[in-house]
Each structure stands twice: as structure tokens, then as C-alpha cells.
């Protein structure tokens, strides 16, 4: 198996798996229980919070609450803040290239709850234009949500500059979806008032995510109940998962320079091969993250090529819909100016540090072969 879909989910690290198994077995008590066993579980939970905040250098300014993943964290960050501060203004600014968990949460706020949502376009490099953000901001804006690294094409937003514009408006909070950035592209995490991510993208387990938020921010909770997680996210916390995520995050941040060097090596081998093939065209901008690249099949159907690769146990991702009736081209690629054929037949390759150059070469060879064998669209 050659697994090149790490942006979708990556293999948990040994450390994360071992600590999860150990804690799930030895400290299974409810972290909210007042007895000794519960207090012990709670100690691990608090330790996990500290480890993450410290690794992100947010321990002074931010708090953290654990969620089931980035989708839930994004929903809580957006809806929780929008509902809490609706009296201050009802405008939210975001971007067309955001992940569906942001876009669809905002769509609900717009359609069901009367918020005004402005979606910024991305430029030809897949980034949010500073000038566009400046134009969109006004005194009614209470929330801006922009991602650090784009999940489809790997473009990197200049989070710090974007934050400086948002923070010229004292009522506006800045949410950064860092799901594809943690462990891959470092930035000044503290410029995000709300920071969300998911553990399984950097070696943690599926089912664990987090929302880091400025200590002054309050939310209207989406899940009410026993007031766990400061009352903002009720329900028994998955302490072993949260703890495993904290270890994976520490490791990912510590190893970031080494991992990135490895990713660059892999990416340069990959892009060299992609550029040599006239049937392919790279969509990612020049300065995209080396962990992820997006390219289009100029003559073939992405779902078919994905299936052919899958048969050979090479796993990549495609945006393309598998149904001829449901044409659903990538909005990000359309927004960058690519035509529908190209936006509909894009493939994403994403690395983990354990991928090898040999795997990349095998992928390239197999892909070229498949492209000559499989009928064009």
C-alpha cells in the first residue's frame, strides 16, 4: 500500500496509540467524577490541555476545549460566537475556499438565523487577498473565519497580516481553521482568537479535535448537559484521545522542520514527474505547502483514475463526483480561474513524514501507465 492521502487522515503515531491504549485501560474513570479515579483521569485531561497550549505558545492568552474533531470545533467556534455576540452585529466574513464544516455552518447562520455572511474569493494563487478583506470589514463584523492552509490545494494564507486587519475592528474575532497547518506550516498561533484543529491529521486518533480560544471569549454552547469543558461542550470527555492528541501535537511541532525538509524532498520529486507528463497540470500555487499538491487530469476522469490507482493500492484523493449526473467541481479551483473540466478532475496527493521517494516514484510510474491504458473522458 502506498498511502498518499494524509490530508484526509494520517496514521496515528506509535506514541499516540500506546498512550491511548494505556490510558483507556488504566484510567477509564469519568474525568468529571469527584472520586480518586475520576480525579486521576481529570489530571491527565488537564495535562493534555497544558501540553497543547504550551506547544502552541498559547498558555497565557488562550483556553482549550476538546471536541470530536475539527468539524465540531469549527461549528462551535462559529455558531457559538455568532449566537453569543449577535447583539454586537450580524456580519461574518469568510472565504469561498473554506472547508465545508465552515461554509455549511455559516450557511446555516445565514439562512436560518439572519446573519449576513460575506464570502471572499481567493486569488489565482488560492489565497485570500488582503485588499478584499479590508473592503469586506466594517463595524458590524463580529467574526472572520479564514483557514491557515487550504485543504484542497495547499495554499498558505498570511494569517498574521490578515489578523492585523481583523483586529483593527475591536468587535471582530478572528477564527483560524488550522486543520491542515498544525505540524506542517507554523505561524503565530496567538494571532487567532479562535483556533481549531483535528488530531488525526497530525498523528493523533480520529474523534479528537480542539478549539483554542482567547480567555475573554464566551460561547453559547451547542451541546448542553453536564457542563463539561467549561460548560461549552457537555458530554463525557475522551480523555485518552485528548491526551494522545496532545502528545502527537508536541511531536509534530517539535519535528516540524525535519518533517518539512522531508516533505520538500518528496514534493520536488513528485512535481518533477507531474510536470513531465503532458496529460497533467499542477493547480497548486508555487509556494504551496510541501505536504500537499493538487493537479488536474487534462484528458481523463478523476474518479476513474482514482479507482485505477486504488486497485493497485495507491491511495490519493479526488474532488470529482463519482456520478455523471452530479457535477460538483471544486469551488476553490473555479475561484482560482480554472475551467470546469479542470476543476472537476483534480487529484490531491498529500504526504506524511513516513512516505518515501521510492513511493513517489512508484506512484508517478503507475499513474503514467494508467493514463496510457485508461480511456479518456
Amino acid at each position, binding site marked *: 500500500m502506498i498511502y498518499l492521502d494524509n490530508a484526509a487522515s494520517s496514521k496515528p503515531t506509535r506514541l499516540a496509540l500506546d498512550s491511548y491504549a494505556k490510558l483507556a485501560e488504566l484510567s477509564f474513570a469519568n474525568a468529571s467524577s469527584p472520586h480518586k479515579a475520576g480525579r486521576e483521569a481529570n489530571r491527565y485531561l488537564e495535562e493534555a490541555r497544558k501540553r497543547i497550549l504550551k506547544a502552541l505558545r498559547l498558555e497565557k492568552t488562550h483556553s482549550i476545549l476538546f471536541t470530536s474533531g475539527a468539524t465540531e470545533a469549527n461549528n462551535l467556534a462559529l455558531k457559538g460566537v455568532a449566537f453569543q455576540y449577535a447583539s454586537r452585529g450580524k456580519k461574518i466574513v469568510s472565504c469561498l475556499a473554506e472547508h465545508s464544516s465552515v461554509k455549511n455552518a455559516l450557511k446555516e447562520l445565514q439562512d436560518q438565523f439572519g446573519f449576513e455572511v460575506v464570502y471572499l474569493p481567493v486569488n489565482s494563487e488560492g489565497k485570500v487577498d488582503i485588499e478584499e478583506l479590508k473592503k469586506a470589514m466594517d463595524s458590524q463584523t463580529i467574526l472572520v473565519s479564514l483557514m491557515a492552509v487550504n485543504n484542497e490545494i495547499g495554499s498558505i494564507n498570511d494569517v498574521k497580516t490578515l489578523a492585523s486587519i481583523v483586529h483593527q475592528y475591536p468587535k471582530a474575532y478572528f477564527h483560524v481553521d488550522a486543520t491542515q497547518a498544525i505540524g506542517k506550516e507554523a505561524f503565530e498561533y496567538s494571532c487567532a482568537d479562535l483556533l481549531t484543529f483535528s488530531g488525526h491529521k497530525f498523528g493523533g486518533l480520529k474523534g479528537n479535535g480542539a478549539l483554542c480560544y482567547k480567555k475573554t471569549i464566551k460561547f453559547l454552547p451547542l451541546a448542553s448537559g453536564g457542563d463539561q469543558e467549561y460548560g461549552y461542550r457537555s458530554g463525557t470527555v475522551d480523555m485518552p484521545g485528548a491526551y494522545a492528541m496532545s502528545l502527537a501535537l508536541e511531536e509534530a511541532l517539535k519535528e516540524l522542520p525535519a518533517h518539512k525538509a522531508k516533505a520538500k524532498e518528496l514534493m520536488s520529486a513528485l512535481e518533477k514527474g507531474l510536470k513531465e507528463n503532458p496529460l497533467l497540470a499542477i493547480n497548486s500555487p508555487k509556494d504551496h505547502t510541501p505536504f500537499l499538491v493538487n493537479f488536474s487530469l487534462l484528458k481523463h476522469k478523476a*474518479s*476513474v*483514475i*482514482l*479507482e*485505477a*490507482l*486504488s*486497485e493497485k493500492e495507491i491511495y490519493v484523493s479526488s474532488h470529482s*463526483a*463519482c*456520478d*455523471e*449526473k*452530479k457535477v460538483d467541481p471544486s469551488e476553490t479551483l473555479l475561484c482560482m480561474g480554472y475551467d470546469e473540466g479542470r476543476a472537476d478532475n483534480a487529484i490531491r496527493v498529500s504526504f506524511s513524514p513516513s512516505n518515501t521517494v521510492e513511493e513517489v516514484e512508484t506512484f508517478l510510474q503507475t499513474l503514467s501507465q*494508467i493514463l496510457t491504458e*485508461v*480511456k479518456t473522458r
Partner: protein
Amino acid sequence: MTGKHFMIRFGELSTKGDNKKQFIQSLGKNVRHALKDFPSLTFQVTHDHIFVGLNEEDEEAVLSRLQEVSGIQRISLVLPVEKDIDKIAELALELAKKENGKTFKIETKRIDKLFPLKSYEICVKVADHILENSSYAVDVHNPDVTIHVEIAESSAYVYAHEYPGCGGYPLGMNGKVLLLLSGGIDSPVAAYSLLRRGIKVECIHFAAPPYTSEAVIDKLKDLIGVLNVYQPKIKINVVAFTKLQEAIYKYVAEPYCITIMRRMMLRIATKVAKKCRALALATGESIGQVASQTLVSIQTINDVTNFPILRPLAVEDKVSIMNTARRIGTYEISIRPYEDCCTIFKPKKPKTKPKIEECEFFEKKWDWASQVDECVSSITSILMEDGIEKVEEGEAL
């Protein structure tokens, strides 16, 4: 025999003369299998009925399972009683009182011809008892409640309710057919129609990876899982069709591609049917629905085989097929968005009146016969049993 029983009647079997015994045995076996999740049931198979003793099991759950067993005409919830007219009358009164009605009628069936009273006399005696002891009036034409009395060899039975079965013949009595299963809406409904008549089904599916996704196979497993209610074990033969299909698109003019593809499918299916001892092929075709299902197309496609082809949906309209699919629970699975080998490379203008001679002209262009043989020999099969894929020993997780 005491307590509530379901009495199962065979209907169409009564015309079967010498084969009747075999039919009843087969039905008995199928009934037991359909009810295997209810451990307290008791079974008694007689010449005229099958009795299922309820013994505390859930009446409605048992009934709904029975209504899905082919070969059953009617199902009644009966109470056995001693063959004594006073006791029969008393039980009939009890049942009538439980019903919500003003008028009633008694219907008697006297199978045991040695019983001292004739059918009419039984009716009168029982009706008298009810009239004297309740506020019911008799209405023989339009009664609110009909109380049935049946005098069988071993016991008498009284009941007020009768439910329809799905009819047809016990599964397997009419042999097996090989059904072309695409995964769309129609073919599972065709399978259902066959199963209801007691015709066993084995499936053949044409997969064209990578043009079709592996997810289609999962879809087929789910569809067949639903149909396992009617036939507990169903085999799906998956044909690797890619090379032949690519050749078709290479050698054949676009409007004829689908026609020739269907001809190849029938050639392969015929060979597979002979191998698996199916007595006929079956398809979900509905006349006129698409280009390959016009009568002219059907004739041109059918020309490659002399094997009988059953088309249970031939004259059904799409709406009624869809309604059936929804009712039996295959619709939601069928509409999952995966392409099958009939929708990939769909010609822009498929021929609606393809000619046999034209097909033969295209088919001279390459050696399809060896590709057909290759398809037959490369088949992989999946066995679905009671909704779960049966994996060979050692392969299971």
C-alpha cells in the same frame, strides 16, 4: 395443540396433484428458516396446512415474516379447540366479543367428513349461541365480523382474522434463474418479483473497473442483503468486463456500443447460466424505458441466445417499479451515485432500432469470442447469506 397458532394455507399448491407432498415439505422448510429467530415457536406440517404455535412469541413480527415467504396464500391466527360443538360455540362467542362490530357471520369448513354435524348445522349452532349471549345481529352479506370455524382431522379451529400471504410457489420448486444485476432500481425489483413466485435467483454483475467503482460491489451486497429476506442464500457472480468493454468502444460505432455490449452480456450470461444450472436468464428490462429496451433493441440483443429470458418488469411502468423498490427497501440503496458499466461512456445518440446485420458487421472486427470465454473464466463470486457476506474460513477478520 393449545394456544394461539398461525394456520398457513397453500393456495396455488392445491392444483399440483402428485407433486403436492414435495411442495409442502419444501414450504415447511422455508417457513422454519424464515422464523428461525423465534426459538419458542412450534411447527406442525399437515396435508392441508402448516401450523405455527406462537408460545409467547411476538404475533406481528412472526406474521410479517410469514407474509414474505412465497407459496403461502393466506395466514390465519387460530385457536385450536376440542371437536365438541358446545366448546366451539363458546370459543366463537369469546372471539366475537373481542371484536368491535355489530353484525357477524359464521363460515364453516368441514374437512373431517366424519364430524356428526354438517357445515350448515355447525353455522346455525354457533350463530345461535352468539345471538343468545351478545348484542350481535346476523348479516351474511356484509358482516362486520366473520368468525371462521374449521373442523380438521385432529382438532377444530376458530378464528376471526385472516391475512394475505405473498402467493406463488415455495422457493426453489421452480428452479433457478440467473439475473443480470446492475445495481440500479429495476434489477432488484425484478429479483423480488421472481422470488415472490418462488423462483430462486442467482446474480451476474458486469464490473468494469476502474471505470466503475469498487463501491458498486458494496452496493450490490447491500441490495442482495435486503433480498436475502426472501432467499436466504444468494450468489453474485462478478464478471471482469473492462477489456471486452474497451474493445467494444474501440471497434464499434458509437450508436451501436450499448447494443453490442448487451449482446456480449447475454453471451456471457448464457454460458454462466449453463455452468450454474440456471434454467433461464432474467433481466430488469422494461419495454421502452431506454434505447436498449425498445422491442427492436430487445429483439436484436436477444438474437445471440436461445436461452429463455424472463423479464418480470417488461410491462411495468417506472413509477410502479420505483414504488415497489421503496416498499421492499432497495430504492435508497439503488440510488447511491455510482456508475455502472451501462452508464459509462454512454453514447450521445444510442440506436433505438439497431439491426442484427449491423451488429454482426461490427462483431466481425475482432475476436470477441475468446474475450467472452475469458470473462466467463475470470468470474469471482460473492455469497450473501442472511444479509451478511459469507467469507471463506480463515478469511474472516
